[in-house]
C-alpha cells in the first residue's frame, strides 16, 4: 500500500505532466492558425479576398451599415460592413425585432456571382457592452 505522502507526490507529478501537455497543446494551436479556420461567420473583407464557391452556404458577419436598410415589400436590402469592406445583402423574410442599423448581424446564405449576398436567415449579434436606455453607447 502506498502512503498518502507518496501518493501525493506521484499524483502531483502526473497532474503536472497533464498541465504541461495542455500548455503544449495550447501553444501548438496558437501558432497553427486554427483560430482563423474555426469561425462562426466570415467578414466582408475575407469574402472579397477569397470568394467562396458559388453554391457554398456560409455565414457573413459584421455591422449593418447605417443608412443602408431598405424594405421593399417582404424583402429587405442592407449592407454589412467590417469597416474595411462592405457587402450588399438581400434577405426575404421578417427581420428580427432587435435588428438595427449600426448593430452587429450574421446572415446565413450564399454569395451570388453578382457580388450580392443572398441571405435566408438573419441573426443579430450583440457586443459584450451593456448600457442603459438613453445613454449613447
Amino acid at each position: 500500500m502506498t502512503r498518502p505522502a507518496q501518493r501525493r507526490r506521484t499524483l502531483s507529478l502526473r497532474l503536472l505532466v497533464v498541465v504541461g501537455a495542455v500548455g503544449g497543446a495550447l501553444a501548438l494551436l496558437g501558432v497553427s492558425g486554427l483560430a482563423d479556420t474555426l469561425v462562426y461567420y466570415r467578414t466582408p473583407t475575407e469574402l472579397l479576398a477569397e470568394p467562396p464557391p458559388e453554391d457554398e452556404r456560409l455565414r457573413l458577419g459584421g455591422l449593418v451599415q447605417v443608412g443602408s436598410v431598405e424594405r421593399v415589400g417582404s424583402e429587405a436590402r442592407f449592407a454589412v460592413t467590417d469597416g474595411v469592406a462592405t457587402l450588399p445583402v438581400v434577405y426575404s423574410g421578417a427581420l428580427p425585432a432587435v435588428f438595427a442599423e449600426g448593430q452587429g448581424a450574421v446572415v446565413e446564405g450564399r454569395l451570388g456571382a453578382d457580388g450580392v449576398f443572398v441571405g435566408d436567415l438573419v441573426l443579430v449579434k450583440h457586443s459584450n457592452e451593456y448600457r442603459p436606455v438613453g445613454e449613447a453607447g
Partner: protein
Amino acid sequence: MPRTPAPGGALLPATAGVASGIALVLALLVAPEDAVQGPAQRLMYVHVPAAWVAYLAFATVLVCSVAYLVRRDLRFDRCAQAAAELGVGLTALAIGLGMLWGRPVWGVWWTWDARLVTTTVLLLVYVAYLGVRRMADDPHVAARRSAAVGVVAFLNVPVVHFSVVWWRTLHQPPTVLGPDGSPPIDPVMAWALAAGVVAFTLLAVLVVRRRVAGLRAAGSGTAAVLPADGAAPVITVVPGGGR
C-alpha cells in the same frame, strides 16, 4: 435545520436568503433596461451567475477528486458528487436560459456556435460522470473511478470559457472576465450582476453542504444512528452510495 454542523449553521441560510432577495430586487427593479437588447437582457443576471458557479462547482469536483485520490477518504468523494450534481443543474439552467434569451435577441433558439456546442458537451460529460459513479457497488471502487473521470472531465471547462475568445462566435465575448481591464458594462448593471453571483455562490455552498450531509447519512447505512435525521429536511430522495 438539520443538525447544526458548525456554529454558523443558521448564518449561511440567512445570508443566502438575504443575498438572493437583494439580487432579485437589483436585477428586476433597480438595474436599467438595456438600450439594445431590451428586457430580455435581464436574463443575464441569472444566466451568467449560473454559468460561473457551474465552473466553480466543476472546479470543486476536480479538487475533491484529486483529494480523494491522495487521501482515500470518502468525505472528498461525497463532496465531488454533490458539487457535480449542482454543476450539472446549473449548466442545464444556463443553457436553458441562454436559449430563452437567444430566441428574442439572436432570432434563434440554437445555433452551431463554439460556445453553445462546448457547453452542451460539458453538460453531457458531467451527466456521464454521475453515471460512472453508479457503476460499482463498492464505494471506494466507485469513488476511485469517478475521481479519475472527474479529473479528465475538467479539461472541458477552460475550453468552454475560452471558446468565445479563441474563436469567432455568435455568442458575445466575456464582459467581466475578459482579457482587458475595464469591463464595458453600466455600473448599476455590474452591481446587479455581482449581487447575483454572490447569491448564487452562497446558495451553491448551502445546497452542496446539505447534499453532502444527506449522502453521509445515506452512506452510513443505518439512518437511525443519527437521531435528528428523521426531522432533517435534507434531500435524501436520490439513492446515494451507488445502489
